[in-house]
């Protein structure tokens, strides 16, 4: 490195263009992107799916996906153009100068190797001169630095024995093994719960403050940007829309796209509780659930190796869904919220003292039993892409559903069903031209609308929406939520809304149930939960949400 490098920024990307070369045509992925990152700085790249942000990260690490090539521009690290470095030398840079953290810590680690061995191997690969015991000592030191308690013991753990947050800490420890100056973090917290996300961001922040590291943070989450980034680059369709200091950009976004992106982020309202507001149960319930429990505990050969005791996924759950109202169920992953959804949709069996739908007792002890909830409760799933049969057109999928659930005596002629289908999709903002499309020809938002139409066509007593917006981009999320709210109000529908996102729940629900480890931790009207509840876990969840500066 020459002397002039002292003035060069740590990372400088200029006029970067990436192209995907397919068999038939080339597609631009990233066009003429410019940005730079200084020592000790966190630069956030934000954009929705397909914006090309991850490809930029891969280009910086030097691991572009097969088929993607850099056609123009340069990436300079401390003044040295990385295009000129290749093969073995480029590999030597990885881990040493540029380290990376990926989105999902569960898949970033080799499941068959202890995390300690993986960390040791990383250290040994980056510093071959160290002796075995030195490597081990350094590994323990790194584990302690990222906040793993009882590091020597955890060194012997396998990835599946650790929680998501601990796994991501291990991944960060590996990224630190080569004492890099730059970490490329691609959605480092997107697979984690809000409370864990906060801790991981705290660890990353500490690295920047204490060790002068720089982080290139790629995310779709404004909250994460607001929490940690010094500067932001907003990307859309492979091009930079806007960039600047985080605080300034969040407060006064210039570009309309950034403004829309910011406006679409669900925010918690501050609630001033009205003592006169009706409490839970004031309205007539359509669904009553009392003492619902579900345990898993199979008889398998694996019992040899594991404990044989049944594991309770749900314990003594009780709630009421108000008629023409929305009950929200919130909780972190593993809290059992989705299990409740599947049980109430009749897809899974469970034990309960009482399940009463619209005044009728229901039997949920076996799946698919007559008198169960199957069919009378409809689901909207998280990922619309996998909830629709890829081989059926929209019309086929919806007609099938309308026919199968039509009550006896209803006109199920081709024309009548088609009329119902068209009426339903038009109310949901789709057009007749969408009817002949296959799911892959629709956008994520359109697919979710089809799923909602499918649920409505069955004329359910209750709709269960299990994280219906989590797989969608922020701007689409807002549309779908508004649509759901409208639909509920227009049709006097009753709904159970399952989500990990408090702001969304507050926006749409009348009553809220907070779940934790298969039990109900807190239960009350939405205003009560968000305004008055003194339950420490509820407060903890609310506080863990990344705060976006006043927008």
């Amino acid at each position: 490195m020459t002397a002039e490098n002292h003035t060069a920024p740590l990372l400088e990307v200029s006029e970067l263009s990436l192209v995907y070369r397919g068999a038939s045509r080339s597609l631009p992925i990233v066009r003429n992107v410019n940005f730079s990152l200084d020592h000790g700085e966190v630069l956030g790249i934000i954009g929705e799916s397909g914006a090309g942000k991850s490809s930029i990260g891969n280009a910086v690490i030097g691991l572009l996906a097969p088929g993607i090539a850099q056609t123009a521009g340069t990436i300079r690290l401390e003044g040295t153009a990385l295009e000129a470095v290749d093969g073995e030398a480029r590999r030597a840079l990885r881990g040493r100068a540029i380290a990376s953290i990926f989105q999902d810590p569960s898949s970033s680690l080799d499941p068959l190797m202890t995390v300690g061995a993986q960390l040791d191997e990383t250290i040994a690969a980056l510093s071959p001169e160290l002796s075995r015991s030195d490597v081990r000592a350094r590994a323990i030191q790194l584990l302690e630095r990222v906040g793993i308690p009882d590091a020597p013991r955890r060194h012997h753990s396998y990835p599946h024995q650790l929680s998501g947050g601990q796994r991501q800490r291990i991944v960060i420890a590996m990224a630190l093994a080569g004492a890099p100056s730059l970490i490329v973090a691609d959605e480092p917290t997107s697979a984690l719960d809000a409370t864990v996300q906060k801790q991981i961001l705290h660890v990353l922040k500490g690295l920047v403050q204490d060790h002068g590291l720089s982080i290139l943070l790629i995310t779709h989450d404004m909250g994460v940007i607001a929490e940690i980034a010094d500067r932001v680059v907003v990307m859309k369709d492979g091009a930079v829309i806007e960039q600047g200091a985080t605080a300034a950009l969040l407060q006064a976004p210039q570009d309309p796209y950034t403004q829309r992106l910011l406006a679409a982020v669900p925010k918690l309202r501050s609630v001033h509780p009205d003592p006169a507001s009706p409490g839970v149960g004031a309205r007539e319930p359509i669904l009553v659930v009392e003492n619902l429990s579900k345990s898993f505990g199979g008889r398998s050969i694996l019992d040899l190796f594991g404990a044989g005791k049944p594991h309770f996924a749900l314990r003594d759950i009780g709630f009421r869904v108000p008629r023409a109202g929305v009950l929200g169920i919130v909780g972190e992953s593993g809290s059992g919220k989705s299990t409740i959804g599947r049980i109430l949709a009749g897809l899974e069996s469970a034990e309960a003292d009482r399940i009463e739908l619209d005044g009728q007792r229901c039997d949920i002890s076996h799946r698919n039993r007559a008198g169960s909830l199957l069919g009378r409760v409809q689901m909207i799933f998280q990922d619309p892409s996998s909830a629709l049969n890829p081989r059926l057109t929209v019309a086929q999928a919806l007609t099938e559903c309308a026919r199968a659930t039509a009550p006896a005596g209803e006109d199920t002629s081709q024309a009548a069903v088609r009329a119902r289908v068209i009426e339903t999709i038009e109310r949901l903002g789709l057009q007749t031209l969408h009817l002949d499309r296959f799911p892959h020809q629709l956008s994520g938002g359109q697919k979710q609308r089809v799923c909602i139409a499918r649920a409505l066509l069955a004329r359910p007593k209750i709709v269960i929406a299990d994280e219906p917006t989590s797989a969608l981009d922020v701007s689409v999320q807002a549309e779908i939520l508004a649509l759901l709210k409208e639909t509920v109000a227009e049709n006097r529908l009753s709904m159970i809304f399952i989500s990990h996102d408090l702001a969304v729940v507050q926006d749409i629900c009348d009553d809220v149930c907070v779940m934790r480890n298969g039990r109900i931790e807190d239960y009350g009207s939405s205003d009560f939960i968000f305004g008055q509840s003194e339950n420490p876990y509820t407060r903890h969840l609310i506080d863990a949400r990344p705060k976006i500066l006043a927008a």
Partner: protein
Amino acid sequence: MMALFKVIAGRLYQAFLLLAVMSLVGFVGIHSVGNPVYNVVNIETATPEDIRRATELLGLDLPLWRQYFVFLQNLATGSFGISYIYHQPAFALVMSKLPATFELAAVAMIVATVTGTGLGLLAGTRPGSRLDRVVVAATVYALSVPSFWLSMMLILLCAVTTGWFPSGGRGSTAEFLGWDWSFLTIDGLRHLVLPALALAIPNIALIARLARAGTVEVQRADFVRFCRAKGISDRRILFRHTLPNISLPIITIVGLQFGGMLAFAVVVESIFAWPGVGKLLIDSIQLLDRPVVVATLTLVALTFVVLNAIVDLLYAVLDPRVRISA
């Protein structure tokens, strides 16, 4: 401890059930093919009286269910009966052929596993390359060629034309652990090469395909990408990360194929005149030598149960998710 006991009990139950079924299959099967007595007496000289006495002597005059009952009684004393043809205890006869088959199958399987996994890894890390295409195409041929043709070609090319290897037999043996083994002498090893190859080649193809498919999948996994991003060398990624992750299906196949070879390598053993269990079984079926057939089938069933248990144990060794989660 209780759980361990339950699993062992389950395995034993499974073994007993299998043994019962296999012995029944042997019994009913041989019974429906014909009467063994005509292979025991000399048809040309025997008088009806001789045949009657032989039938009584072998217990063949009893109804089949009584014969089976007698067999069970004998089994309780540890005897599978006496071979009608060789006049030796059937079980000891099978056991005397076992070392030959075992060493043949073991050598073939070791060659197949090492070569197949190696080829699969090489091809899987370079999908679409020339090497990959050659490996994939070659495996199709190797799997479709019938084993008798393969064996004869090996004899023709490597024994008859060139004279590199002997065309059949076991060669000289050396004693170890009370049994005679070919692999302990140079001559025996030379005799082992061709039959082992004939058994190994289809398995190389099978394992190479499995390994290739697994490698292609694992190479796309996030943790391999993360290893690259960490700066780990390709070699280490291949051997320390890819190999263990693709090995579970390979172990399953190796276990099954090995078990099959121990009993049913009939074609190869016959062509190479290898005095093994497969050859004994086919000869015994032809001669309606029921005690030997039943003893062989029972032993095969037992082998499969043991192999299955070993495969399960290896799973636990390789995959920590199967073990106790502490």
